[in-house]
Structure formats: C-alpha cells, structure tokens
C-alpha cells in the first residue's frame, strides 16, 4: 500500500508539480474552450493563452507571498 502511495505521489509530483491550482486552471480553461466552440459556436482561441498567463502570475504571486 505504501509503495502504491509513493508511486502515486511520484506521478502527481511529476505531472502536477508544486501548484495543483495551475493544473486545475488549465483543465477548466480547456473545458470552457470546448463548450464555447461546440455549444455556443465561438472560436475561443484566446481563452487558453489568457488563462495560462493569468494562472502563472497567480501561482507566482502565491509562491512569493508564502
């Protein structure tokens, strides 16, 4: 069990890293983009770059404040 936990922790750290909120923002932005494109009919190419840059700034702000 502890080995499974350490393997899970390794992959979490490998992919998600120090700030899980960044990963959450990326996934949410992609989901919202898909909704806008397929359900609303808006070609929202600008949404992901804006969200990614904002998420980076937010994460850096949190890191430098702590």
């Amino acid at each position, binding site marked *: 069990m502890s080995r499974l936990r350490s393997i899970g922790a390794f992959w979490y750290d490998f992919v998600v890293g120090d700030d899980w909120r960044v990963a959450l923002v990326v996934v949410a932005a992609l989901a919202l983009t898909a909704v806008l494109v397929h359900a609303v009919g808006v070609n929202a190419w600008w949404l992901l770059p804006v969200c990614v840059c904002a998420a980076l*700034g937010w994460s850096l702000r949190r890191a430098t404040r702590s």
Partner: protein
Amino acid sequence: MTALPLILTVFVACAVEAIEALTIVLAAGLTREWRSTFQGMAVALAVLAAIVAALGPTITLLPLTALRLVVGALLAIFGLQWLRKAILRAAGYQSLHDEASAYLREVTAAKAAAPTSRGRVHDWYAFTLSFKGVLLEGLEVVFIVITFGANQHDVGAAVIGAAAAVVVVAVTGVLVRAPLARVPENAMKFAVGIMLTSFGIFWGAEGAGVSWPSQDAALLVLVPVVALVALCYTVLLRPRRGRSPAEPATEQVVSS
C-alpha cells in the same frame, strides 16, 4: 511545422536533464566504481528505450483531436511547472540549481556508503545511484519525446533531438570529467518552459476544437507572447527582493 523546431526543443529540454543525470553518474563513477555505474546507467537507458518503444507507436494510434487535447493539457501543465520554477530562480526566490554542490552532496553520500555486491553487480550502491539518477531524469525526456513526437507524427525526429543532447552532454562530461556547472541551466529551463507551455496551449486549444488564426503560424506569435509574459513576471518580481531591476534575468554562474 517542420522537424527542426521539434528537434531543437527536444534537444534543449533533454540537455538540461542529461546534465543533471551526468552529475549523478560522475559522482557514482569517480567515488565508487565505473563498472557498476555503467551497468546502472545501461539498465536505466534500456528501460527508458522500452517505454518510448511501447508508448510512442501506441499513442500515435489515438485520434488526433483527443491526442492534442490530452497531450496539450499535459504539456501546458508540465511547461508551466518548469517556467514557474525558472522564474522563481531568476527572480531570486529559489536558489539556482548548482551542479557543483549537487555533485559534492552525492560524492559525500557515496563515500559514506558501505560496498555490497548483488549478482553480477559488484557495487550495488553505485548501480542504484546511477540507475535512479538516469531513470528519473530520463522520464522527463521520455515525456517530452513522446508528447512532441506523437503530436507531430514524428517520434523519430524527437528521438534524434534527445539522442543528440545525451551524446553532446556525455562527450562533454567525459572530456571535462566534472559536473557541467557553468552551463546556464536556468536560462535553458526558462526557454524550454516557454516552448512546452506554448505548444501545450496550441495543441490543447486545437484539441478543444479551436481554429487558430493563421493556423500553424499562430505559434510564431504565441511563443514570443508567452516569453514576454514570463520575462515581465521575472522583472516584476525582482525589485521586491531589493535587487536592481537592471540585473539580468538569466542565470549567473554559480560554481566556484
């Protein structure tokens, strides 16, 4: 996209990881014994090659839209990790990765460990140190090779970039016989973070159904925009630490 940006991106990313692996291999080889160190390195490289051989062709069988969505998301998340760390280091919030001190730590630990042999491996400590170092650093290389290669349907070109990086770093390491502490590792990590994030945004959005203005040429705008934003964050963070904003954002030489 032609193969050249793919090869160059993979080359720089893999060079960063290869430098870190070289530090561990040198520490094991010079302080313990070379035979067991090479055995550990060879087994790790075989495992990494098997992962690429198994996952590379499998992942290219996925539908392109799904592939780009998943791989784009992973690359953006992964790239942001690199970029975040590189910015924090460049702004002075985290210490720069110092290969010289990392080497000294590994050497001290290697000298203290008792020699034990298992099977054909004469020095188990040297074997495991080398194996773990090469495998862990190599996994990031494999991730980049597979994601970039699969998305461009050119795993071969990505493998060429990775192999060239490993050869260049290995040959330099053999010639210098010391950790490559003078390589601007943070600046390289900064550049790779920008590339991974930009490609992740591009492919992820395409996978979500977006049509980029000017199609592939959008990357020529996206990469500089991400770079500019990252540089702005670096500059904005620096004065808060009481440093002069005029100082360069790239890595200083940290070795003695």
